[in-house]
């Protein structure tokens, strides 16, 4: 049975139809990449799955049961505009998830438990390359550093479903490669289910086990808000998880199957 199942989902903002008739089954342990033109509704789809927004129509079920309206630790998220907590240092931001779950009442850790959590957080910061910056506040960091912090913050919880909205957009190729390795390792080790929005088609194909393309099927030039985007391509990649790093050729693969992204009228 599918872990997550979307049935005839519509998302509308007032008059404007953003997503229409989205029906999807997402299997446990899959790594779904979502691509699509700017303004197509990729982030909106993630927000709905996250429970941050209610779809206008349609249902979502998790493990067969209706998705709880509020979000919880089963779903992790990295937002498109890497939002970390401005009042916490890098270390504080990373620790937060551990503190919440360990102590529901004080939401803080003390003594040995805290030391262990700090060690875990520092290891995570090390792997995103922020170990040296652990005492900085978000306002003192570059865009890419904030993005990495947001990734570390979400990953340390190892949520069942991880929603990533252009998580590597502000990173240089070197660090991006490291992040790919990190996320793949965690995905494999913990059996996560990941839904990732990206603009990098290579990345979509090299990381994902399935690639979805969101775009408008129809377009009314006089009323552009009339039709929403839908899933126009849904590619199950046959590659196994182990082969993920064989990313050469992903680009060609995409081109081979004829993905060209329509850029007109998706706003």
């Amino acid at each position, binding site marked *: 049975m599918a872990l997550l199942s979307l049935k005839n989902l519509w998302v509308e903002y007032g008059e404007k139809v953003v997503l229409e008739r989205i029906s999807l089954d997402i299997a446990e342990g899959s790594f779904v990449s979502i691509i699509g033109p700017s303004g197509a509704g990729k982030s909106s789809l993630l927000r709905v799955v996250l429970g941050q927004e209610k779809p206008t129509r349609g249902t979502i079920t998790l493990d067969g049961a209706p998705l709880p309206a509020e979000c919880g630790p089963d779903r992790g998220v990295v937002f498109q505009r890497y939002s970390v907590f401005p009042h916490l240092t890098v270390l504080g931001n990373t620790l*937060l998830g551990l503190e919440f779950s360990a102590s529901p009442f004080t939401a803080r850790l003390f003594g040995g438990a805290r030391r262990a959590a700090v060690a875990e957080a520092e290891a995570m910061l090390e792997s995103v390359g922020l170990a040296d910056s652990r005492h900085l506040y978000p306002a003192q960091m570059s865009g890419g550093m904030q993005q990495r912090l947001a990734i570390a913050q979400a990953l340390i919880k190892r949520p069942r479903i991880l929603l990533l909205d252009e998580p590597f957009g502000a990173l240089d190729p070197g660090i991006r490669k490291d992040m790919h390795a990190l996320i793949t390792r965690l995905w494999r080790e913990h059996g996560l289910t990941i839904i990732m929005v990206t603009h990098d088609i290579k990345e979509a194909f090299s990381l994902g086990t399935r690639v979805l393309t969101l775009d408008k099927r129809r377009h009314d030039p006089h009323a552009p808000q009339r039709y929403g985007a839908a899933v126009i391509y849904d590619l199950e990649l046959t590659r196994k998880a182990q082969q993920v790093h064989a990313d050469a050729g992903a680009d060609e693969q995409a081109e081979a199957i004829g993905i060209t992204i329509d850029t007109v009228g998706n706003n």
Partner: protein
Amino acid sequence: MRWVTAQPGRGRAILLGALPLVVLAFAYIVAAAARHSDNVADKILPLPGAMAAAMAALIFEADPLSGQYLFWADTLASLTRLGLGLGIATASTLLVGLVVGSLPPVRATLGPLVTAIAVIPPIALLPILFIVFGLGETAKVALIVIGVAPFMIRDVAGHIAALPREQVIKALTLGANSWGVMLRVALPQAMPRLIEALRLSLGPAWVFLISAEAIAADVGLGYRIFLVRRYLAMDVILPYVAWIAILAVVMDFVLSRGSRRLFGWAHGAAH
């Protein structure tokens, strides 16, 4: 330099800031001198010498009746009341503001009540306050609390309610329950705003303190001002008002510095 980006240095800023105050003082002296040339016994705008003399008696000479140095006794009494009142107001703002700001159902329930209390002028209800709190210190402290707390609560609760929704969602995905969101997300980010609200409340708090002391008291800065108002002793009133202003400005400065110290993240220029 453009005006919108010009940042005067520290020394220059102090100089600039002092300028209008000096001009004001000078204007006062000119006006007072003019009145005194008409009527040497003028009470409305006393000359600095007269104020100094009047104040010297209150500051340095013990009152024969009570044996107290009136100025200091007044200051101590008023500051105690103010401190208690603002302390209670701040504590209740933290509590109520946090709950009202972060929990929408509580906001729906208590919001209208807080608004109603905030807009009811407490001085109009004095008779009821007397019955509930008596006429002692409690009543004075209560008037300050009732006067400023609703405003502070509305301000802080509004700020918390306006925190980006992403932060709440993020915290929930990190395993927080509602309490965790309040404690670790809303509360710390409300702190600088709380201090800001406290700073903005200093003026109203003094107003309520002085009103309370005007109603029934036997010591306090407001008591003295209203007592000597009976014979238009502006030579006491003006220095007292200036003293209140100095005390309030110092508190304001300390709070603003403290906030920068403790919550640097909220003040640093982000880019």
